């Protein structure tokens, strides 16, 4: 590039910049406003990403425990497969489920369930009982968003490892496993799992809030987990039971983390029913959020910030 060319180019760039800035000042106030708003949203988002990153770091600290849990999970899935294989001996199908479908149900359902899970209740309950909640109440960020963001950061690594190990198991059974990667199904199932994650998070939070009234929530939590596991189809597909159970489970939030997405995956349930289910999930999220707001407000009035 000659000196002259350089000179011309610089001038061009400068005049372009000048023109742009003028245009900005003249007619672009609106877009500038929008830009500021976006920046604001970005800043607000930053608080969440920072929290998530911090808890990722912390999760790495517990990598051994995270790994140890996965061993048990995989073992449970294998035991279930062993059990059903034994039960099926000689029969080609039970209540419309072939063995191949049953194994797929167990494998894919556990992947879904692995993504949806959280351990928020205990954390919320101990924050309340040990008075740690006080340290959050004085901060300009709501406890709900703090603790949910923290939980997302906390479980990312376990969930990733869980899904990875389940996929490894699926690969081991790749001859039996039924693959369904139709994009329509993938889309609906993904949305369902996303919503199920949110409703499970809110439900756990709500159970944790009961600690405002009782000293421990372990009993309630365990009972809840068992009922949830049953209605989610985690023990066995609900279609094995009278039809009324499937109908009930459709209007409860639990089945959306296992049974319903697994049924859709197996094409045993129509996509349209799945879309309808998404609506049910949204309603549940709204209900849970509403109840949480009421319970939180009442609970805080009772909160005694004990501990010290």
């Amino acid at each position, binding site marked *: 590039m000659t000196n002259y060319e350089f000179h011309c180019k610089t001038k061009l760039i400068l005049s372009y910049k000048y023109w742009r800035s003028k245009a900005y000042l003249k007619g672009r106030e609106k877009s500038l406003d929008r830009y500021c708003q976006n920046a604001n949203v970005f*800043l607000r988002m*930053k*608080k969440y990403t*920072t*929290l998530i990153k*911090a808890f990722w*770091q*912390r999760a790495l*600290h517990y990598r051994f425990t995270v790994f140890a849990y996965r061993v048990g999970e995989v073992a449970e899935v294998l035991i279930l497969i062993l059990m059903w294989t034994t039960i099926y001996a000689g029969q080609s199908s039970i209540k419309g489920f072939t063995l191949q479908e049953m194994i797929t149900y167990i494998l894919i359902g556990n992947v879904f369930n692995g993504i949806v899970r959280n351990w928020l209740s205990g954390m919320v309950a101990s924050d309340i009982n040990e*008075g*740690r909640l*006080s*340290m959050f*109440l*004085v*901060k*300009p*960020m709501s406890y709900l968003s*703090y603790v949910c963001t923290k939980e997302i950061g906390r479980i990312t690594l376990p969930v990733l490892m869980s899904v990875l190990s389940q996929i490894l198991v699926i690969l081991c059974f790749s001859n039996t496993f039924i693959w369904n990667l139709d994009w329509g199904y993938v889309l609906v199932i993904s949305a369902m799992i996303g919503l199920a994650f949110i409703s499970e998070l809110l439900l756990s939070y709500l159970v944790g809030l009961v600690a405002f009234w009782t000293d421990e929530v372990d009993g309630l939590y365990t009972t809840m987990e068992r009922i949830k596991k049953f209605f989610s189809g985690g023990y066995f597909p609900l279609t094995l039971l009278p039809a009324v159970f499937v109908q009930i489970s459709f209007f409860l939030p639990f089945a959306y983390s296992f049974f319903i997405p697994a049924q859709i995956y197996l094409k045993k349930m129509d996509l349209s029913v799945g879309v309808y289910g998404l609506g049910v999930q949204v309603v549940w999220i709204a209900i849970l959020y509403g109840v949480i707001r009421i319970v939180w407000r009442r609970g*805080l*009035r009772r*909160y*005694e*910030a004990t*501990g*010290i």
Partner: protein
Amino acid sequence: MSIIEVKNLSKNYEYYRKEKGIKGSLKSFFYREKLLASAIKDISFSIGEGELVGFLGPNGAGKTTTLKILSGILYPSAGEATVLGFTPSRREATYQKQFSLVMGQKNQLISNLPAMESFIINKEIYGISDSEFKKTLDELVGLFNIGSFLDISVKKLSLGQRMKCELVAALLHKPKVFFLDEPTIGLDVVAQKNIRDFLKTYNEEKKTTIILTSHYMEDIRELCQRVIIINLGVIAYDGRLDDLIKQYVRHKLLTVTFSGKGILRRDIEKFGEIEDFSANSCTIKTSRSDAKSVAVALLSSSLPVDDITIGEESLDDVIRHIFGEGR
């Protein structure tokens, strides 16, 4: 101008009584007698801008409860509190960005992570700009000299180091009002002294209004000009620390040392009440006004006096005296 206004504030806690033994437990499973305990009763005070006030009182006196109400953690049962014109229990973000609370026995730092991570989280939560954050952090880290362990997991720090980090985390957003609940509890004397020095400098430089509770007299004596003594939920004294001493310290202590073989107890009994005695040294308690004349009398007597020092009755004794009155 007063920053903190507390009017007729009360707080009651509910609790239950359980009869002893398994029978009592079973009974209380079905029916529990509900009782009300009042942590604070009808207290009022006001605190001006830049004041550093000490809350003093025995365990369970209501100091922490008051601080918790002022920071919006607890709802008052009756009466009202305003801080910077806000009602704390509404927990408005604009108020929350202007004050800070540090409790000696509760931490806000995330364990298993270096303190720096918690600082960064606070930066985002309080919406502190990058440049402001860096400036404040550098300043605080310099004041405390904690630069070397900011990147070590909080779990591995000593109690003193951790408390310093807690204070830094609490001050990053430059609060106008700062509540400290037992910040020196469990610390060794050196760490206690560090924290006291820091608070003193911080209060002088930033004119931050500070309320401090502590059981350690040394904290209060060094830092606070004004003390509010709370006992059994009511204010037993509110005023200058000097006045407290004048009002309640009625005695002086004369410590006399003797040379040679020393003396006998009966030789000095006539000078005043003997607190402590050995042949070569003794402590005599006299009224404040008599202290000088007693010293003169000792010096002019035939006793082998080597040295006399006149001291105050300790503040601890005074406080114990006041606490005792309420019971």
